[in-house]
C-alpha cells in the first residue's frame, strides 16, 4: 500500500543527512521507534551531528537520540514549536521527519507556513499506515483511518479512501462509496494497518 499507480501518492525514502551548512532538525514520532532504528538514525546523521537538533515526540522517557534532544508530548505541540521557531529557516536548513503519514504531513504543512520550501524537507515513513482522509463532499478530515472505507467524521457518509493525495491538506481523498446505489457498500477491510 506504500506503492501506488497513483503518482500523487508520495514516496518516502530512508533518511540520510545532507551535509549542508545550515541547521538540521530531525523530528521523530517516538512511539513508532522500532528496536535499532535510533542507532541507524545516529549513524545516518553523524556527519551533521554538531548542527543537529532532534525532537522526540511522544517517545518513551528512556529513548536516546543523536544531536541536541528536545522532548515533546504531542504532534500539536511540535507543530506549534515549528511555527514559532526562532529566527525562522534559512535556505541551507533541512527538516527530516520520521513517523506515520498524518504525523509527517502535519509537521510538513506547519513547516511550509513557517517558510520552509518542500525541497528542504525529507521524510521517512515509520509505524502504522493509517491515513488522514479528506471528504470531497463536506471537506472535513477524518483521522486515523485504517480501513478501505471510512465513516466521515463530518457528514457520516461512507467514504471510499482513494490513493489520491494532497500535500497541502496532508490527506487522502475520500469519496462517497454508495452515491450511485444507496446502501451498496462493499465490505470494510483493514488495509492501512
Amino acid at each position: 500500500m506504500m506503492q501506488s499507480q497513483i503518482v500523487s501518492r508520495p514516496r518516502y525514502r530512508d533518511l540520510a543527512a545532507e551535509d549542508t551548512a545550515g541547521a538540521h532538525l530531525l523530528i521523530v514520532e517516538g512511539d513508532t521507534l522500532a528496536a535499532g532504528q535510533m542507532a541507524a538514525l545516529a549513524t545516518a546523521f553523524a556527519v551533521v551531528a554538531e548542527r543537529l537538533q532532534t525532537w522526540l515526540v511522544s517517545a518513551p522517557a528512556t529513548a536516546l537520540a543523536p544531536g541536541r534532544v528536545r522532548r515533546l508530548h504531542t504532534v500539536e505541540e511540535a507543530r506549534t514549536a515549528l511555527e514559532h521557531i526562532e529566527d525562522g529557516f534559512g535556505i541551507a536548513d533541512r527538516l527530516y521527519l520520521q513517523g506515520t503519514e498524518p504525523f509527517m504531513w502535519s509537521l510538513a504543512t506547519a513547516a511550509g507556513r513557517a517558510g520552509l520550501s518542500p525541497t528542504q524537507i525529507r521524510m521517512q515513513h515509520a509505524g502504522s499506515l493509517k491515513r488522514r482522509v479528506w471528504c470531497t463532499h463536506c471537506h472535513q478530515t477524518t483521522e486515523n483511518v485504517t480501513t478501505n472505507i471510512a465513516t466521515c467524521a463530518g457528514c457520516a457518509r461512507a467514504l471510499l479512501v482513494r490513493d489520491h493525495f494532497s500535500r497541502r491538506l496532508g490527506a487522502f481523498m475520500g469519496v462517497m462509496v454508495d452515491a450511485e446505489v444507496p446502501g451498496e457498500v462493499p465490505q470494510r477491510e483493514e488495509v492501512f494497518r
Partner: protein
Amino acid sequence: MSLVFKPEETFRGDYSYRNSDAAILRFPFPFPEDRYMYSVNIEPHVRSGPTDAFCRPFDIDEHYIAECRDRALTLELDPGRCQVLPHMMAAQWDTLELLMENLAADYPEQFSLTKEGDVFGSRWTWINRPLGIEQHFIFGDPDTLPCEPFEYITRQAQGDFAICDQREDNLYLDAGMITSQADWSLAFNVGMNFMEWHGPVPLAHQAGVFERALKYLLMLRLGQPVRRLNWTMSINPRLDTSPESYPEWGPDRASVTVENAGGKVHLRVELQTLWRLPRSNAILFPIRCFLISIEELARVPKWGKRLYRVLSSLPPELAEYKGLTRYLPATLAWLAPLDDGAQLATGIGPDITELAPL
C-alpha cells in the same frame, strides 16, 4: 454562426438543455478513429478546425446565458469553486485582458471593450450585452471591480478556467474557476503540481504522456496557444459533475436503461486550450465543456457509428476511471443498431452540412 441564446434552458432540475441543429453540427466530436487511447494530442489553437467550435480563441454559443447562470448558482451554493492563491494577482489581470480582448474582437455584437491605455492604471469600459453588464474600471485596480478580476471575467465566460503558475520546471494549479468539471475537486487539487493533479489518470503515466505534455507546456510561447480535446460521459446535461455534488448526481448513473439512454446519456467533450500569459508568465488553461445527448449526436451518422465503436473497444480501466461502467452496457445496446459496419473516414468532422429532419 449567428448567436441566438436560449436563456431559459437548465443544467439541473428539469434539465431542459438541448442542442439546435447548428449546435450539433459544430460539436467538437473527439474521435478521429474507431478506437481511443490517451496520447499527447496537442495542436496549435488556430482559427480553423474540423468544426466551428474550434474556430475562435474563446468560444461562445447558444448556451452562453444559461451557462453563466448555472455557474452563478453553483458559486452561490459553494463559493470554494473559485479559488486563487495570493501570489496570482498578475495572472488574474492577464486573464481578464485576454478574455475581454478576444470576446470583444470575435463577438462585437455581444461584447465591447474600450481602453484608454494598455498599462495598469488605465481606464477601461467593458460591455457585455447578453448579460446586461456595463463596467467602468481601472485596469490593475481590483477595488474598481465587484470581485477579483479572475472571478469577474470567468463568471462571464463559458467553460472552466485554471491558471498554472510556472516554477521549478513544473506547473502548479494555483487558481481556478471550476463549476463544470468532470469529477475533480479544485479544493483538493489547488496548489498541486502537474504530475500530482493528473495522479489518478490510469495508463497515461506509464505511457509517459504527462512527462511529454509537461515538457511541451513549459515551452509554451506567448501568442501561440495550443489545444487538445478530452472527453467523458455524463448522465443528463449537467455541468456541475463535481465530486462535491456527487451524492446528488451519482444516482443518475444507476437510472440508465436501453430505452432512455438516447436522451439521458451525454457525451461530454472538453476543448482545452493553453495560453502563456504576458505579465505573470503563468499558463491559462480554459476547459470549455460541450454536452450532447447520444440521440442528438447520432443525427450525424458518422458520429453515432464511431461512438459505438470507440465505446465497445474502450479499455476497462478507462471505462472505470471515467465512471462509465454502470451504464455502458445500456449505452452500447442503444448505439449498436446504428452501426452498419461501414468504413468511416478518418477525422472528427461530421462530413455532412445539414442534418436529416427529425
